[in-house]
């Protein structure tokens, strides 16, 4: 059913239909509307779940860890400092192979304190073993949550999945959303069952100490699962497309006017909407521009990216985060990917935009486009106010 919904409310509605048995969260802007709505749904008996109000994000993640370990489907959501505080548990959840689903309402990191959107928070747990998916629209965020449970709980996977949605832009934006029915969602993700759980009739030890004789292989197996995810995620995406009659891309990436594109933007999340408009403008002027949207950042779909870029001459990576002292994280991954293309590799430039909620406008993307064909850069900040920088000197 099509409804005009706020992003957070839409997420709560879809999570309700995914039927988690335990929900735990700690308030942080801009995630709060999601869990407020879920708390109300539990209070109104619309959702049969235990809602656990905790004293920190570290405990929010630990509560869903414990509940998921009993074999119950769980949900939590966080943002920014909250994600950083729970980072230790985030890594632990993946190592324990617990298929928890979490929404991250992407937001800047302190200091200075700033509640607005960018994607620096998720990059701090980039290497945790979680599947990291990025939504461009509220509809896509809704759809990715349903797929997240399907992907994570697949016995071949058994890994947690994080759905990233840009804070405020998507969490507080309004959009017409095609909300699937309880029945449709229930059919797509049947109740969670597993033999890997705490069970008094079949006692298991979870969370062993693994010495150097075992640790390397256990970590390798997570990496191996991520490789297998490169075929499992498209499988789930195509099942989703069949069941719900919508969905662009193959679950890993999506191309926009890429077929003959020579100049390609690469980006993740809501900024892709702005870039689509830019591409249309450029195309209208006869420029062969296109967009490669990364949906699955982990696993990183290297082969799909290379195929998508096979005709590209110039590539501009639009990062909404930065590894300070290094480069934009997506830029780094892209460089690693194209390094295998040899002399056919496109020229890749890296740009950092929109940190701390600075608007990314059509003009910002135009700026990137102009620099794409200029001198190759690896970490160029776009939209800097020179007068502020001069003041700081």
């Amino acid at each position, binding site marked *: 059913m099509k409804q005009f919904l706020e992003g957070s409310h839409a997420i709560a509605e879809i999570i309700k239909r995914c039927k988690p*048995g335990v929900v*735990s969260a700690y308030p942080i802007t801009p995630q709060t509307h999601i869990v407020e709505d879920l708390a109300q749904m539990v209070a109104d008996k619309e959702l049969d779940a235990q809602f656990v109000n905790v004293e920190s994000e*570290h405990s929010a993640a630990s*509560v869903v860890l*414990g509940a*998921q370990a009993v074999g119950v489907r769980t949900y939590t959501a966080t943002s920014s400092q909250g994600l950083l505080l729970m980072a230790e*548990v985030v890594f632990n959840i993946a190592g324990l192979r617990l298929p928890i689903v979490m929404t991250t309402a992407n937001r800047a990191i302190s200091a200075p304190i700033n509640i607005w959107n960018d994607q620096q928070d998720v990059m701090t747990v980039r290497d945790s073993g979680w599947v990291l998916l990025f939504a461009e629209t509220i509809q896509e965020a809704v759809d990715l949550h349903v797929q997240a449970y399907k992907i994570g709980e697949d016995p071949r996977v058994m890994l947690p999945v994080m759905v990233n949605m840009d804070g405020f832009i998507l969490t507080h934006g309004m959009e017409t959303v095609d909300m699937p029915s309880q029945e449709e969602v229930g059919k797509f993700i049947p109740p969670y069952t597993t033999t890997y759980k705490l069970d008094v009739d079949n006692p298991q*030890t979870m969370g062993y*100490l693994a010495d150097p004789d075992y640790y390397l292989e256990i970590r390798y197996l997570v990496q191996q699962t991520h490789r297998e995810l490169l075929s499992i995620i498209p499988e789930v995406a195509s099942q989703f497309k069949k069941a719900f009659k919508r969905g662009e891309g193959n679950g890993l990436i999506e191309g926009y006017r890429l077929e003959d594109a020579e100049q390609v933007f690469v980006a993740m999340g809501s900024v892709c909407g702005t870039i689509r408009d830019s591409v249309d403008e450029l195309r209208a002027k006869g420029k062969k521009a296109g967009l490669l949207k990364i949906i699955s950042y982990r696993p990183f779909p290297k082969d799909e990216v290379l195929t998508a870029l096979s005709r590209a001459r110039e590539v501009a990576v639009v990062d909404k985060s930065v590894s300070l002292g290094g480069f934009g994280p997506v830029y780094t991954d892209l460089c690693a990917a194209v390094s295998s293309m040899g002399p056919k590799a496109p020229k890749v430039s890296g740009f950092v935009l929109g940190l701390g909620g600075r608007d990314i406008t059509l003009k910002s993307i135009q700026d990137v486009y102009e620099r794409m064909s200029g001198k190759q850069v690896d970490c160029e900040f776009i939209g800097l106010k020179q007068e502020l920088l001069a003041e700081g000197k």
Partner: protein
Amino acid sequence: MPETLFKPGHTACAGCGQAVGARLVIDTAGKNTMIANNTGCLEVFSTKYPESAWCVPWIHSLFENCSAVASGIEAALKYLGKKDTINVIAQAGDGGTADIGLQAISGMFERGHDVLYVCYDNEAYMNTGIQRSGLTPTLTNTTTSPSGSASLGNPRPKKPMPEIAAAHGIPYVATASVGYPQDVQKKVKKALSIKGPKYIQIHVPCPLGWRHESDMTFDVAKLAVETGLYPLFEYEYGKLVSRKIAKIKPVEEYLKVQGRFKHLLKNPDAVKQVQAIADYNIQKYQLKSEA
């Protein structure tokens, strides 16, 4: 050997008080029990992959979060309608309890989860090499509170964890000692018969960290109680009930059998200071026998 849910073959040191305590707890709780265990000696010596000493469902996540993990286990069991038949225990050492784990414990108590929290108190971070914790006693020589020409060791008193637990208004708080195994069993049994959050702190000597002979574990544990330095008491719905001491012994008897207090013996003022702590406990917890 009687049937136990905590199997031998683990790698605890000879004379480890914590291994004895853990076995007493789980064998009293029985097989319908799930355990969330913080990082620490117990976790390390009982679950080295691919072996495990535990015959009940057991999970280790991190150093400080067993209370939150146990809260999640309890919430999941409630969701499944199974909570009434299954005990949930969160357990940790003294550092994992009184220092790094305190926030999560407070949250679990305040939310009223039906979980028994067990702190195995060996009075320092033994797993990492005898560093001072919030439950290290006054004037103890540890590797991070060493005695020296300008120091007599740890300058601060033990954090009053049982009182901190009781201040949350939880129904049952107790201290116990592996020197009194039946008392441990009795308290665990009582705790598990009460719904809501419970806290038991068990004194568990560590021969390596306390530097006593490994066949002295029970004697050292008993001396701590008999001197008044480790008072055994319960707060049942806030009401204090203490275990009386038949014959109170001077603290020197406890100090002299342990290397961690050796530096105090030639210092009468220091011994007096420790005796004052025992005297305070004896009064506060009414440890003196009436007879």
